[in-house]
């Protein structure tokens, strides 16, 4: 969340140099082509086109009912697209039944077979492939080791804790070494601490095994942590598909900006637009605002500026640097979170703006307090102009 990081350089540099979606010659592993899925009158997935590349950790993110699970279930073969094509490694799989697809899924409910012990659960898929017994035993052993379940091999699912069941489900879905592993809210049932640990385990696993992972989640932090790219969905439509840092720093729409993290949306009207910067008028200040991100607006457009709370600065005095945008307000409330404090600043126009400031020193003498008149500033590159 560090502010002022040079843009276009992304977090976790080693991992994120992987970017096959930028290479036009690269063939995607999974391709949704204008896929529509309707249930009666309800359109769950509305004309989605999406490419997912080999070895990618891809997240489908959105609120419940946004169609992300339906999209995944179509890939697993449990739902048929109403329209459109679905290809895997170049072959159309729309008509292939789920039991013939080289895709395995980890279910949200885990769906462990209650009458089989851990070993038999993991071996189930391998037995379907008529793998020789010795190979099955070896693979099961390997999976048990990978998921640290060796001592639980003979237990039945109801004798395991939630975290252990989650690992059995993971081991079972990985055992067949599928081309694509689908994870449906895989960590939803775990407590926060275990969930965070498991996120990193999943990332390591995906790297080590070199598989393509597709995860469905409504937890934006989870998606940001694990994924190479995120697709934000709402009402069956893809809102934006981009790496986590881009989703956060360069949201394409108000919806994405608002859905991911905290954001201030300031309404305005474009007065001039160039390839360098966009200038807008806004009710928050009598002066025009300069923004250098999101340059597709035209003069006269109604637009809004999205500014993350940590990219705003707050001070008791007007800024010396006149190149930054600034506006005046009054402290309405302060939320102390330990590592940071959130200042709610009420402006003359009535809008409240959230500003977060790291607590670099102890807060015993807080320079800014309730009802103080303050100046809020942000650099031209800190805001993004959104027209949608």
């Amino acid at each position, binding site marked *: 969340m560090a502010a002022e990081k040079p843009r276009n350089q992304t977090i976790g540099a080693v991992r994120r140099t992987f970017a096959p979606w930028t290479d036009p010659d690269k063939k995607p592993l999974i391709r949704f082509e204008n896929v529509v899925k309707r249930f009666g009158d309800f359109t769950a997935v509305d004309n989605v086109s999406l490419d997912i590349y080999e070895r990618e950790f891809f997240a489908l993110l959105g609120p419940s009912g946004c169609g992300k699970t339906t999209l995944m279930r179509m890939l*697993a*073969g*449990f739902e048929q697209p109403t329209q459109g094509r679905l290809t895997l490694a170049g072959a159309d799989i729309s008509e292939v*039944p*789920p*039991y*013939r697809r080289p*895709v*395995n*899924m980890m*279910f949200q*409910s885990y*769906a*462990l*077979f*209650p*009458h089989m012990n851990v070993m038999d659960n993991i071996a*189930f*898929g391998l037995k*379907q*492939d008529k793998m020789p017994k010795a190979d099955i035993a070896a693979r099961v052993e390997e999976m048990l080791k990978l998921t640290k379940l060796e001592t639980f091999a003979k237990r039945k699912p*109801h004798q395991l804790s939630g975290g252990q069941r989650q690992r059995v489900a993971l081991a*079972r*879905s990985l055992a*067949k070494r599928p081309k694509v592993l689908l994870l449906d809210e895989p960590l939803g049932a775990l407590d926060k601490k275990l969930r965070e640990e498991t996120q990193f385990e999943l990332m390591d696993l995906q790297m080590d095994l070199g598989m393509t992972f597709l995860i469905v989640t409504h937890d934006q932090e989870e998606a940001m942590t694990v994924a190479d790219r995120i697709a934000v969905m709402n009402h069956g439509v893809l809102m934006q598909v981009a790496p986590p840092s881009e989703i956060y720093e360069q949201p394409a729409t108000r919806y994405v900006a608002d859905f991911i993290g905290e954001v201030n949306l300031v309404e305005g009207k474009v007065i001039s637009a160039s390839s360098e910067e966009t200038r807008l008028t806004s009710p928050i200040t009598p002066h025009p605002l300069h923004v250098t991100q999101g340059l597709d607006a035209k003069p006269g457009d109604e637009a809004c500026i999205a500014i993350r709370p940590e990219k705003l600065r707050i001070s008791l005095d007007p800024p010396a640097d006149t190149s930054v945008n600034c506006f005046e307000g009054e402290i309405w409330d302060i939320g102390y979170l330990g590592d940071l404090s959130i200042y709610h600043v009420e402006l003359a126009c009535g809008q409240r703006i959230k500003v977060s400031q790291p607590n670099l020193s102890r807060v015993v003498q807080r320079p800014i307090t309730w009802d103080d008149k303050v100046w809020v500033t942000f650099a031209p590159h800190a805001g993004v102009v959104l027209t949608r």
Partner: protein
Amino acid sequence: MPMAGEKGRGRLFVIAVPYLWLLALFLAPFLIVFKISLSQDAVAQPPYTPLLDFSQGWAGFVDFLSGLSFDNYLYVLDFSNEFIEAYGSSLVIASISTLLLLLVGYPIAYAMARAPRSIQPTLLMLVILPFWTSFLIRVYAWIGILSPEGLLNQGLMALGVIDEPLEILNTDIAVYIGIVYSYLPFMVLPLYSALEKLDETLLEAAADLGCPPTKAFWTITFPLSLPGVAAGALLCFIPAVGEFVIPDLLGGSNTLMIGKSLWTEFTVNRSWTVSSAVAVLLLLVLVIPIVIYQNIQQRELEAGK
């Protein structure tokens, strides 16, 4: 601790009601039947001796005990008297009926459990609906269907499928039809309750791991419905062994079932003592499956915890 005392008394009361019920309506009649089975036939009122004579005191009680014997059991267990055969034949007919019930009931229960949620209560009602008519009348109705002039034969002849009536009534086949028809709800309901609980994502998981639907039925659905299969089978098997009305009305003179033998012994031979012995032995025969059934229920309860 007065609280605990009150609580204990309350609990005792709640438990006492079913126990008293069992004591008065099961154990007491059973002891009376058992006593009669140890007595001898007599031309008297009641038609057996000895009777406990309280006026004689202790000596009377000793007299009474010395008058009891296992002679009736020896008589029943004597091969020449056909009771053993009747027990055996009852067990065979009940076993075959149970198997047929399973074959007919499982698809019905499966279809019900997979039907849309909204129509499941209606389907359940339809299964229970026959109970609203007397069991006896329903079995009688089968005579009308199965007899040579009955609906089935007339229908088949009208269609030209057969030239002369099939002989179904008064054969073992009619008994099987009668038992399967009458006991079907007892098979369908436990199967339905087991299948309805089955999580459908398990089948999706099986398919996802490469298991085609038919195989998934045998590796997932069927094993998980086994408690229902066992409950349904025993609920049908136990009463079918002692069934009397169906073999009497639909079966022929060759149909040998213990319930029918008991009835003949009691009404035609007027031997209270032998028929009591038959009844006690029937209970012993059925204790084994009843214990199995209880065991299964116990395990179900523990698994549910």
